[in-house]
C-alpha cells in the first residue's frame, strides 16, 4: 500500500495535530537556537580573541542566555518622552515577527512516515509548502526593514535616525542583489517551492554517478557566484559585521536601538539572531540541498545551519566595518551587475543544454 500524504482532506484531526506539533517543535527549536547562538557567538569569538567568553553562569556559562533574558526582563522599560509611542512599541515586534515567520516555509527534513488505523501517512517535515515559498521569504525579509526604519524614526533621537536611514538604504540595496542572485536558482529548479528546490537538487552531481550517493547536485556547485552573492547580500540584510552600519556602536552608539531598553531591546537582540538562523536555513536550502546529505534529514539540515552560523560569527571576528558610501558602491556597482550577469549566463546555459 502506498502511503498517503497527510492532508486536511484525508484525516483532518490528525493533520491538525501534526501541524500543531510541527509548529511547536519548529518554534521552540528556533528559539532555543537563538538563545544559544548568543552563547556560542560569545564563546567562539572569545576563543578567537584569546578570551574565555561567559564562564560564571552555570557550567561553562551555559546558563548565560537565560540570565541575560531574566536581566533584560526585569529592567525598567523606558519610552522616551519625545518618542512616537505607538511606533516605538510596534517596531521591535515588526522586526522579530518576519524573522520567525520565514521559518514556516523551510523544509527541515525528509517526510515522516507513520501508520494510523491501518493507513500509512506521510508527514512532510515543513510547516507549509507554499508554491511561492521563496517569494514569501523575500517578502518577509522586506518587512523586516520596516521594523528597523520605524525604530530609528520613532525614537526621536539623532543617532537612531542616522541608524534608521542607513538601514533603509542598505537593506533595500542588498535585498535587490540577494533577490536577483537566486533567480538563477529558479531557472534551474523551475519551481518557487522550497521543497521543490530541495527535490530538484537530489540529482547525481553533474550527472556523474561515481561520486558517493549522497553527493548530490547541490546548487552551490552549479551556481557558486549566486551562492556568494546571496550569502553576502543576506549578511548585509541582517546587519551582521562587516555590514552592521545601522547599529555601528563605535559611530552611532547603538544606532536604531539606542533608545530601547528592557524586553524591547531583547526583541531586537532576538530578531538579530533569529534572522541569522533564518538566513542560514534559507542558504542551506537553496544552495546546499536542504536536508539532503549522508545523515538522517534533520541532522544534515542542522549541520548546515550551524555551519553557516559559525561562518557568520567567524566573519565578525575578522573584518572591520565598511563605510556607508563604500557599502552602497559595493551593492549597486559590484553585486547588482554580477547578479544580473549571472542571470544572463544561466539563461544562456539553460537554453543551450535543453
Amino acid at each position, binding site marked *: 500500500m502506498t502511503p498517503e500524504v497527510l492532508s486536511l482532506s484525508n484525516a483532518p484531526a490528525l493533520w491538525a495535530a501534526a501541524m500543531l506539533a510541527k509548529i511547536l517543535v519548529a518554534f521552540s527549536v528556533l528559539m532555543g537556537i537563538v538563545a544559544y547562538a548568543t552563547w556560542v557567538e560569545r564563546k567562539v569569538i572569545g576563543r578567537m580573541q584569546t578570551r574565555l567568553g561567559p564562564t560564571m553562569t552555570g557550567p561553562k556559562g551555559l546558563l548565560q542566555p537565560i540570565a541575560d533574558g531574566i536581566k533584560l526582563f526585569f529592567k525598567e522599560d523606558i519610552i522616551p518622552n519625545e518618542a512616537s509611542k505607538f511606533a516605538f512599541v510596534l517596531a521591535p515586534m515588526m522586526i522579530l515577527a518576519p524573522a520567525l515567520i520565514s521559518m514556516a516555509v523551510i523544509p527541515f527534513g525528509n517526510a515522516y512516515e507513520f501508520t494510523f488505523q491501518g493507513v500509512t501517512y506521510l508527514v512532510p517535515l515543513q510547516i507549509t509548502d507554499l508554491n511561492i515559498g521563496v517569494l514569501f521569504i523575500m517578502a518577509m525579509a522586506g518587512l523586516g526593514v520596516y521594523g528597523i526604519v520605524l525604530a530609528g524614526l520613532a525614537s526621536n533621537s539623532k543617532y537612531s535616525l*542616522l541608524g534608521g536611514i542607513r538601514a533603509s538604504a542598505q537593506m533595500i540595496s542588498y535585498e535587490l542583489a540577494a533577490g536577483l542572485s537566486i533567480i538563477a536558482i529558479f531557472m534551474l529548479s523551475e519551481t518557487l517551492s522550497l521543497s521543490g528546490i530541495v527535490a530538484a537538487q537530489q540529482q547525481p552531481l553533474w550527472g556523474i554517478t561515481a561520486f558517493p550517493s549522497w553527493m548530490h547536485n547541490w546548487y552551490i556547485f552549479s551556481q557558486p557566484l549566486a551562492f556568494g552573492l546571496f550569502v553576502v547580500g543576506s549578511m548585509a540584510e541582517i546587519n551582521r559585521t562587516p555590514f552592521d552600519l545601522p547599529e555601528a556602536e*563605535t*559611530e552611532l*552608539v547603538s544606532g536604531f536601538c539606542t533608545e530601547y531598553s528592557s524586553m524591547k531591546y531583547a526583541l531586537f537582540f532576538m530578531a538579530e539572531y533569529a534572522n541569522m538562523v533564518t538566513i542560514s536555513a534559507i542558504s542551506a536550502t537553496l544552495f546546499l540541498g536542504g536536508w539532503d546529505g549522508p545523515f538522517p534529514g534533520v541532522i544534515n539540515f542542522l549541520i548546515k545551519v550551524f555551519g553557516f552560523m559559525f561562518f557568520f560569527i567567524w566573519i565578525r571576528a575578522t*573584518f*572591520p*566595518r565598511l563605510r556607508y558610501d*563604500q557599502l552602497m558602491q559595493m551593492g549597486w556597482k559590484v553585486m547588482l551587475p554580477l547578479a544580473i550577469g549571472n542571470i544572463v549566463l544561466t539563461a544562456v546555459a539553460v537554453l543551450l543544454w535543453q
Partner: protein
Amino acid sequence: MATETMTINMGPQHPSTHGVLQLILELDGEIVVKATPHIGFLHRGTEKLSEHRTYHQVIPLTDRLDYLAPMSNNLGYVLAVEKLLGITDKIPERANTIRVIMAELTRIKSHLVWLATHALDIGAMTVFLYCFREREEIIDIYEKISGARMTSNYFRVGGLSEDLPEGLVDDIRKFTESMEGHLETYEGLLTGNKIWQKRTIDVGYISGEDAVDIGLSGPALRASGVDWDLRRDDPYCNYSDFDFEVPTRTEGDTFARYKVRLDEMRQSARIILQGLDKLKPGPILADCPQVCLPPKKDVVNTIEGLIHHFKIVTEGFKPEEGEIYVGIEAPKGELGYYLVSDGSPHPYRMKIRPPSFVNLQALPQMVEGVLLADVIATIGTLDIVLGEIDR
C-alpha cells in the same frame, strides 16, 4: 526642497571619542559640514598644582597626563628639571640606558593602545584584544619595576628610583623579541584587508605643509612626509648612541599613519634590544647630593644620611633662577616642559606642551566634508589622550 543641517553632539559620553572629547558635528545627511572639538572635561589643573609642590613631588602628577605613556611624561619632566639644575651631564650611563629602554617600551605600549582602539573604532574587534594581550606584558614589566601598573613614577631627578629587579632584563628581552611576530599578526589582520584599506587610504588627509603650520608632531607629522624626530634631531638621554631609523611616509592619510606607527614599534624593539646589550652594572643616581636622595643603607645607619634624606624630602632642592624648555619625542609627538624657577623649591610656573592637544587642532580641518564614519577613523588616527589635552 528645503534641507537643513543636523547638529549632533558627539561625546563626551560616546564609545569612540577616546575619553571625554566632545565634538559638535554639523551634519548634512552623513556628511560633516563642520566639526568643533570641545575640551576640558578632564581638567585637573596639573600645571597649577605643580606650583605648590617640590620638584620631586611633581613627578607623580606627570604620570597622569598621558596615562597611556606615563614613563615618557616622567622622562620629559625629569630631563627639564635636570637641565634647569645643570646636571644633565652627570646622569650615569646605566640610568640613561634604562631610561631609553623604558621610554621605548612605553612607546610600544602607547602605540598598542592606539592600534587597539583605532581598529576597534573601525570595527576590527579582534585586533583590540590581541593588542591588549601584549600591552598586559608591558604592564607586568612596569609593575615589576615600579610596583604600579599604570602610574609608574619610576624616574627621578638625577636618575631612577631604583635599579631593575633581578631577571627583568630577560623578561624585557623575551617580550621584545616576541614583538615582531605579534606585529605580523596585526598586519595580517589589517594591512592587506580590503575593507581596512578602504577605510583608511585617503581618509583624514593632511599635507606636510599644513601639518607643520598646525604644529603636528610625532607619527602624524612623519606620515605627511616631514622627517622630524627629536630622538635623532635633538638627542636626549643617550639616544645618539643607538642605531635606529625614523620611519616616514608621504601619503599623509590614515593608512600612512598606521604604517608609520607599526614601523615605529619595530624600531622601538630594535632600540630596546640594543639598550639591553649596552646595560652595564653601575650607579643609577647622579652624584649630586643636593638633589638626589642618599642610599637607603646610609639613611637607616648614619645620622648624616638621615638628615640628608630629611632635608631633601621636606625642603626639596632649589634650582637657580631661570627658565628652561625641554621637548622629547613622546609616543604621540613632541612633549615639552617649560619650567620657570624663582629660586624656591617649587616651580614658579610649569607649562606643558602636550602633543595630543596640538594634534587635535588638525581634526576640524581633516574631517570637513567627510562621512561620519571617517570622523571616528580620524579621531583614532590622531591618537589623542584627553588626560594630556585637558591636563
